[in-house]
């Protein structure tokens, strides 16, 4: 118990300082909500290896880094060149603070709101109070509680019923730690109205060498018959810690096409928790990750089939080189009345080195009797026979290896329904391989 108090202590002290300043400009309900969240976090501290959900992802390094809460920086005047070139609307955050000058929100159609969470709270305090209080802080999710206590800003996105946005929305989070290590906790709300359709790209990026901790939480609600394409790129600084949690609430007849590509950070966890709350839902949660050096990449999913007659599909594919470590924890829960559920989950990993490690924990928990559920996990190496075949045609062994890796990953990026974004993600994979070749030579 004493040890747990230690990990929360610096955050508690920082919170006390921030609370003094917040008193003047934040509504009472928000201050109370933050205090509740802090109390929960203080009781639990950072999760350690005794916490089942964090058994394979050790936050020791994170707790020792000594992060200070991010302060607003002078605005930057250009986007990092690594930002994927995707046409459409754009909203940019720097260390969790909204950057209006770099955002492209001028020509939003009627019925589409994309703004900073701060602006939304000012504009519609009552609505935001009810939304933000909807999920109370829980001891099971200490980092989510930490986010509630500290979050300075985030995204508020609302698509009115029936609107089909042709252009994607690009959410950019840039981390930048000029001197001391900093932490920021973006809190975002996505509301996709009934029958609406939209594609969202999230890019989490930063400069290599910068040490920062991005701890984001997104609450995503998809109303009846709506469609959301949600693609997330985690290409943070090589010294960054990225923890991302998305809580999805899916209503009847919705289609969620989610994809997370992780290539950056020293330690990262992308966690998706989906509640299947109706029939005829198709929930696809896919992802890919490529890691080298001592990177640690975690993908954790929880799909809760609470209602009958829906489908969930999950495929995660990873490539681990050097001493990199991967984690996949995927749980599918089928509640007693969720008959006719069709749930499928697959994790496949390629190890390129003897010292790379993959921890895989697929779980099915089924309380209904008429369901079709499956899961599978494989960890393997590149096929020597395939490499030899390519070499007998004159292809260099490194190129042969890269060709096989690209094919392995392209098999799952193919699930991305937005073509431009799919191609951009494939290029990120290609670039990762080229960067690896440069290290070799």
């Amino acid at each position: 118990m004493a040890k747990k108090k230690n990990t929360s202590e610096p955050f508690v002290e920082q919170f006390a300082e921030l609370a003094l300043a917040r008193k003047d400009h934040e509504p009472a309900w928000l201050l109370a909500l933050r205090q509740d969240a802090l109390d929960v976090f203080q009781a639990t501290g950072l999760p350690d290896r005794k916490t089942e959900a964090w058994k394979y992802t050790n936050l020791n390094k994170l707790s020792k880094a000594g992060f200070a809460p991010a302060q607003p920086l002078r605005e930057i005047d250009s986007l990092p060149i690594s930002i994927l070139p995707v046409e459409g609307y754009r909203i940019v955050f720097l260390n969790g603070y909204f950057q209006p000058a770099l955002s492209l929100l001028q020509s939003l159609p009627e019925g589409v709101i994309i703004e900073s969470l701060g602006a939304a709270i000012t504009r519609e305090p009552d609505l935001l109070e009810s939304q933000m209080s909807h999920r109370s802080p829980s001891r099971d999710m200490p980092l989510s509680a930490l986010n509630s206590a500290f979050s300075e800003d985030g995204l508020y996105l609302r698509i009115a019923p029936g609107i089909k946005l042709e252009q994607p929305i690009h959410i950019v989070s840039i981390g930048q730690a000029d001197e001391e290590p900093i932490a920021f906790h973006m809190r975002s709300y996505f509301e996709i109205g009934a029958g609406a359709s939209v594609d969202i790209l999230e890019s989490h990026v930063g400069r290599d060498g910068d040490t920062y901790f991005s701890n984001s939480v997104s609450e995503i609600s998809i109303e009846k018959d709506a469609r959301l394409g949600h693609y997330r790129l985690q290409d943070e600084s090589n010294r960054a810690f990225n923890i991302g949690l998305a809580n999805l609430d899916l209503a009847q007849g919705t289609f969620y096409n989610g994809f997370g590509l992780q290539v950056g950070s020293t330690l990262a966890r992308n966690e998706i928790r989906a509640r299947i709350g109706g029939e005829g839902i198709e929930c696809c949660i896919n992802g890919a990750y490529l890691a080298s050096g001592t990177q640690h990449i975690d993908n954790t999913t929880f799909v809760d089939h609470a209602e009958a007659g829906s489908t969930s599909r999950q495929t995660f594919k990873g490539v681990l080189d050097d001493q990199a470590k991967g984690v996949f924890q995927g749980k599918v829960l089928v509640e007693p009345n969720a008959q006719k559920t069709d749930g499928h989950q697959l994790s496949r990993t390629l190890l390129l080195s003897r010292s790379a490690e993959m921890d895989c924990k697929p779980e099915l928990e089924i309380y209904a009797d008429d369901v079709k559920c499956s899961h599978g996990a494989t960890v393997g190496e590149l096929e020597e026979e395939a490499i030899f075949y390519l070499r007998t045609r004159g292809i260099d062994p490194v190129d042969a290896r890269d060709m096989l890796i690209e094919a392995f990953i392209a098999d799952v990026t193919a699930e991305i329904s937005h073509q431009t974004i799919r191609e951009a993600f494939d290029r990120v994979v290609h670039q990762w391989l080229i960067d690896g070749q440069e290290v070799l030579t």
Partner: protein
Amino acid sequence: MPLLEIKDLHARVEDKTILEGINLTIEAGEIHAIMGPNGSGKSTLSYVLSGREGYEVTGGEVLYQGVDLLQMAPEIRAREGVFLAFQYPVEIPGVATTTFLKAALNAVRKHRGEAELDAMQFVKLARAKATSLNIGDDMLKRAINTGFSGGEKKRAEVLQMALLEPRLAILDETDSGLDIDALKVVAGGVNALRSADRSMLIITHYQRLLDFIIPDHVHVLAGGRIVKSGGKELALELEEKGYGEFLGEAA
């Protein structure tokens, strides 16, 4: 100078010695057939010549155009003009045949000091080759050998050979798994690639492939050694008598 000289070649896989002193000389433009019973070392010979890992040469040498072939990595052998048509071409899901063949051809062209082809030029060339060999170009769009029938796989191997224009083609049991019609198409493709500066080493268990690809020389491999050599009529003789007499000799 002969194109290929195999001198007293010994090789083993793990602890098992398979080749026990192979001697074979192939001149430019010649077609040699190696026939032999199962387990005689036919496929081992093809893998040793193409540089597959796990096949350890324990004695002898192989000179290709006068240079030590065994010192070259598999991709260098390929770029120098050695081509192995696999008995079981490998399925590689997710890699488009076009992507693969363009990379292969450009690696070979670069090695020869020729300009690399762009995607348009490559597709044009690949289609032209496929048409001239009468083997169809639909497989170019598909993943390498993935879901191909036995006949399609062998036709794809012949198309690859046509594109890479090897000086020495090794055909390992190219007839296996083919019905007579598929066999004719594949043999027709191989015959179209015969030329005065291209040699072939055809490895086969059965004589029937040699009805369609007429060899200049036929050798019998048994017990890891060439035990008999002759002209094309030797193949017919083997078809009639079987390998019985050589099995005895080898044991």
